[in-house]
């Protein structure tokens, strides 16, 4: 058995020494609040967590006695399972609170539900909600740590962190890499969180989408938010040229009904990531997808299952990253938070 702290799937340049930065976050709301040092800290901790996932006894007692609630107001299989596995691997009690079916149906308000969970002695609430901003309301309302597992069109920080971590493990660095994010940017919390994270890590982000699926005021958004190296290239062939990472986003089929797309066929013709387009990227390009995939809509099957695809590794890394976040935030006392 070999236990290694560095990624086994690449010649990773280890980050300098052990995690040096002081962790001060009580919540994980979005990556805009995290510094580069914080993100590196998460990577280092995730490496340790990956070791645990790779061994026979996939359990440590670190969070024994802690209670973690998955409060999901939106159906989710993957993210929810990932958080549950992460929490259980660290020895925590996990309570699933499927708000899609339970108290919402009874008309309990969000705020009341949060206070109930706090009264139950919950340490961490992992919240997913179809409306933007709910994790921020939760962080104001209760003393529990809040992890944003996706809020509306706003943010999905743990997904972005696992994307970044997956790239870092494969390529060994992030600085200077060119990433192309394709498709429904407008409604994508994954894209928004990644724009923050990638920007902070010194990556160059190119967005490629039809204008109806872009942000209205994208230039002002980028400049006001203080993001660097984000640009828009509508033509996907041009966008992909020289890319190190390509990330097609899931296209919700409702977008066509909403009139944002004339037809799926036209979208597919203009924006599907297929083998030909991928060949325009760098030779060692990697393909990520936040899942679930709509095969042969935003991504061709050959690409999704091809050698460049790291989609399955994203899933494993997601558990490690979520373990790292659970570990880190439960170490921070409320008063120390930033």
């Amino acid at each position, binding site marked *: 058995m070999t236990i290694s702290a560095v990624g086994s799937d690449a010649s990773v340049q280890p980050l300098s020494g052990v995690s040096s930065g002081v962790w001060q976050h009580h919540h994980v709301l979005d990556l805009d609040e995290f510094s580069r040092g914080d993100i590196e800290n998460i990577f280092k901790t995730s490496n340790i967590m990956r070791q645990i996932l790779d061994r026979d006894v996939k359990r440590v007692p670190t969070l024994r006695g802690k209670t973690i609630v998955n409060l999901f107001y939106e159906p989710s299989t993957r993210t929810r399972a990932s958080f549950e596995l992460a929490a259980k691997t660290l020895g925590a009690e996990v309570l699933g609170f499927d708000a899609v079916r339970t108290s919402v149906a009874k008309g309990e308000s969000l705020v009341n539900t949060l206070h109930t969970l706090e009264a139950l002695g919950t340490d961490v609430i992992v919240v997913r909600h179809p409306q*933007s901003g709910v994790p921020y309301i939760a962080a104001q309302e209760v003393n529990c740590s809040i992890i944003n597992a996706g809020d509306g069109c706003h943010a999905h920080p743990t997904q972005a962190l696992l994307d970044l971590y997956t790239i870092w493990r494969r390529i060994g660095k992030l600085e200077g890499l060119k990433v192309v994010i394709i498709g429904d940017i407008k409604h994508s919390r994954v894209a928004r969180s990644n724009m923050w994270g990638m920007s902070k890590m010194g990556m160059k982000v190119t967005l490629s989408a039809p204008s109806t699926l872009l942000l209205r*005021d994208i230039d002002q958004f980028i400049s006001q938010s203080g993001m660097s190296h984000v640009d828009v290239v509508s033509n996907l062939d041009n966008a992909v040229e020289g890319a190190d990472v390509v990330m097609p986003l899931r296209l919700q089929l409702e977008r066509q009904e909403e009139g944002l797309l004339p037809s799926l066929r036209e979208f597919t013709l203009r924006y599907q990531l297929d083998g030909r387009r991928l060949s325009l990227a760098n030779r060692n390009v990697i393909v990520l997808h936040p899942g679930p995939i709509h095969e042969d809509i935003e991504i061709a099957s050959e690409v999704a299952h091809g050698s460049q695809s790291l989609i399955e590794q994203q899933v494993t890394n997601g558990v490690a990253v979520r373990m790292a976040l659970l570990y880190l935030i439960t170490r921070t006392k409320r008063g120390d938070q930033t």
Partner: protein
Amino acid sequence: MLVITNGRIFDPCHGIDQPGELFIKEGKIESVGTGISFPSSAPMIDAKGLIISPGFVDLHCHLREPGFEEEETIASGTQAAAVGGFTTVCCMPNTDPPVDSKSIVNWIKKRASENAVVNVLPIGCITKGRKGKEICDMAELAEAGVVAFSDDGDSVPDSQVMCHAMDYSRDFDLPLIEHCEDKSLTNGGVINEGWVADRLGLKGIPAAAEEIIVARDLALARLTGAKLHIAHVSTRGAVELIQHAKRNGVPVTAEVTPHHLTLTQERIMNMSNGGGQLKYDSDAKVYPPLRTQDDIDALLEGLKEGVIDAIATDHAPHTQAQKKCELELAAFGISGFETAFGSLMGLLHAGKIDLGTLISKLTCEPARVIGRGNDLGTLRVGAMANIVIFDVDREWQVDRPRFVSKGKNTPFDGCWFKGKVLATIVNGEILYQDDSVRVNHE
């Protein structure tokens, strides 16, 4: 009887700005000026260093009664109005039931006569049930005493219906007040469409949604010659459209709210003080949404140039439960009576507006919009004594638990304002006075 002495008497519409006394007798202004005579037995307020102006007239508020008494009542709402210096308020008809018949107008008038501390002027619906389909019995409503017609909360979506309403309203010479919102563009929108909406992942409400209806209604007003009043103008484009129409003789008036003059879209993130945690602050969720500094500049310019006639609060009280929830589910609206004057005075102290413009937009000009320029918003001798006394320099902090209004929903909580209403006199009676104001009885 009441005498106010030593103050600066200020009524910009009527060209009065002089030190002196004001004598009130039997609820009316008996005499104004220096060295006027009054009985020595009359109770007296010493207004040294203070300004005495006509009581404010609000063209646009929601008193919520009947139907939404948990949010506000005629009693609590008019008490809040008095704290804010308003002596006359026009209440919007989006109650439950809506004010679309004579009986409801009469009910409100009766409630007001029993419970209101300031003058309440009801506004009637444009369409039956506010449904936007058939116009109300406007003659009956006019006879019952409504001062305008409005489906506020919604536009009249159908252009033909609006055209008929305008034509018909001409018989009564009352304005139609339009809430300008193209629902097909705003549906699901939460805040102004712009970088903040992008940043927060919220659906935006484009300026165009307002301007489309403004443009349509201006065209219809031109066509019909009816009096049109545009509610809560919030965009530069709307100001420009109204300016153009006024120059071409279209009979249009317009109002702007204090919050649209003082706050921008960034307020909802609550990060204006540089940094801090991102917020989704439902207290800043309002329709029309808070816009940009460029829009504010245009609105201020519009006020100065007379494109915009009035400042109206759009006082929209809500319960805590309606605000303390997911931002997309939270109610639109700001409880505005008690912060209106203080927030506007910030513009004065910043040199963005002069006192004459500010007071005229709160007094005689809104009175003229509803055809009441003679008896409301004036210090003319013989008019009802509706008067406000304020201190331009008094500093105070907004503390919403102390609001008189049931609606504690304000984006100004904790703000320090410079400029405060110290006494409000309605029909000769002091209905609000600051702790610092003493009435001396000889």
